[in-house]
């Protein structure tokens, strides 16, 4: 199952959902990187994510770095409590632009 990407006026939104574990993070990574190829700002909607592990976090980190290189705005929206906890464990909560949900 792949993730939905929607197009707004200003940005692309990647809607991650469900459990982003080692089984599904390659899909998430693909969706994130291909959205960044567009050149417009990318918003990652985390509202439907119930679980994320280190491989999911790694996908976000890789996308963040790619965005930074290409000077593209990259932000995480609707970040739930569980996901935020994992991001803070990785000390990434201060690095990502996070809009809590």
């Amino acid at each position: 199952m792949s993730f939905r990407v929607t197009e707004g006026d200003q940005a692309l939104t990647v809607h991650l959902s469900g459990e982003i574990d080692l089984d599904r993070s390659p899909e998430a990574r693909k969706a994130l990187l291909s959205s960044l190829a567009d050149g417009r700002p990318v918003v990652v909607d985390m509202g439907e994510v119930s679980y994320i592990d280190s491989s999911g976090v790694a996908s976000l980190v890789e996308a963040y770095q790619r965005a930074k290189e290409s000077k593209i705005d990259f932000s995480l929206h609707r970040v739930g409590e569980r996901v935020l906890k994992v991001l803070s464990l990785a000390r990434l909560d201060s690095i990502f632009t996070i809009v809590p949900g």
Partner: protein
Amino acid sequence: MSASLLGNLSPKPYAGRSAGYLELLGGLMEQFAQTQDIEQTLKLALQRIADTMQAEAASLFLLEGAPGDSRRRLVCKVCVGPSDITGLALPENSGIAGRALAANAAQIVADVRLDRDFVPPSGLDGFVVRSILCAPLSVRSERLGVVELINRKPCGSGAEQLFTPEDTDLLAALAAAAALAISNARLTQSMVEQERLRRELELAAAVQRNLLPPPQAADAAVHGLSRPARGVSGDFYDILPLPDGRIVFALADVSGKGMNAALVMVKTHTLFRSWAKRLADPGRLLARIEAELCETMSFGMFVTMVVGIYDPHRHEVRFSNAGHEPPLWRDTLGIYHDFPAGDPPLGIQCKLENNRYRENVLPLAGGTFYLYTDGATEGRLADGTMPGSEGMRGLIEAHVDEPAAQRLEHIAAHFGGELRDDLTLLLIDDAAADCGVQRRRRQRRSAAVLVSQTIPASTDQLKIVRRLVEAAARQSGASIDWAADLALAVDEACQNIIRHGYRGCEGRIELRVRRRDNQLQVELVDFAPSVKQDDCKGRRLDELRPGGLGTHFMHALTDRVRFLLPPKGAGNRLLLSKNLQEESVP
């Protein structure tokens, strides 16, 4: 009985008296009303009519063929007189008989030479037809045939005699009585035929019922139930215990209903039984049945089927699903997981990867596994609604505390007495595998092993690992958050085994969760080459790069991470310990 009754009627020569008619009419009507053998009765009655009405010959024709069919004919069934014309067939609108039938009224012809509708019959061996009296056999609007009298016998002087209007009335009345008798006899015949079919169906249903496994012992882990919608069924289930303690099971649904589906069901079931004894490997077993079925399957028919093997010692099921409704696993937290079919139904002759159906390995971990046919999801509940797969979860949930065998009965009872489709259910209660509830309760109190499970080392099993760990943690009184933290730590440890231990190759992981005082201990044993501990140090967090986070999570989310000496033959043994919070320690 018919002969004796007719015999009691003394043959009185026709004298043109009403009394003679009435006697004949009364006697024959009584006879018709009581007859069991319509052909014999008609033959005797026709003889009696010919004698009484002094006809030289008489015949009775019945219509054969459907109305409007050009092949419809009047066929002579019974005759008396010098020539036997039994079997003679006339077009339904031909001759005087056809006219009587079309007009639904008696016809009297004094001299056939003067009637242009008259068709001279052939093959009468010199018998000459001079006059005819003919009456239709009809019941309400339905026309059945005609009865015909030919040539009034000459009187003693040899002078020609003719049929009279009085004779016409008498014959019309007799014909009406005969028609009613014929109609009743036909009705009886069709009822006898229906009764015979009903009995055949009952015998077939009994044969099918005998193919199903006997009711299982109350404390058995696997139970099934099958209810046909009409006599015979297109569904079946089976439960075959193997000598090593494992149990092979199957549940299938043949497309369509009725006798054809029932026959294909019997064939599929027989194939299953004969192959299951040799091939306890669900994916190959299904492929074998598919190959056999395809050789002789009727066009447009197919079978959806789940075949699996339950291992009560390892608490796991291995199953393959050929186009059937997704099986449901209810875990010990009460969460439902479904497993949609990986391959199409049997009988469609599909190309299979590696000539086998895909297999799923599912650790049941004390949960329950449910299989059902669409007679359940698409059946009608007492309130007329269709449960669907959501509704099925509701039905299961409503009876979840009942013993397994009764649970199926009670779920089936929701579908009422009149089923729309065959209904078949099967469940595997993994909790029953541990010899009863009491022992499980004792085990829980002494808090020894909460989970002991071997899991394939593949990424799609990680979700199941998390569910198992969460369930064990919640069972020990931990909060949802605490359980999620431990599950994440164990997930990361398993990822390391899959990625760095087995490096994507096939393998297995032994997972054990124990409760020791106020601590949960998760032990992971793998059979991959030993990992140097230095490789597993957490990364420096100020160094921003993907990967390397997993080990850090394991340390951050537990109280202790230890590599222990692995058991003989194993590669690595990791122990994660996490202290339960104060408030959750009983």
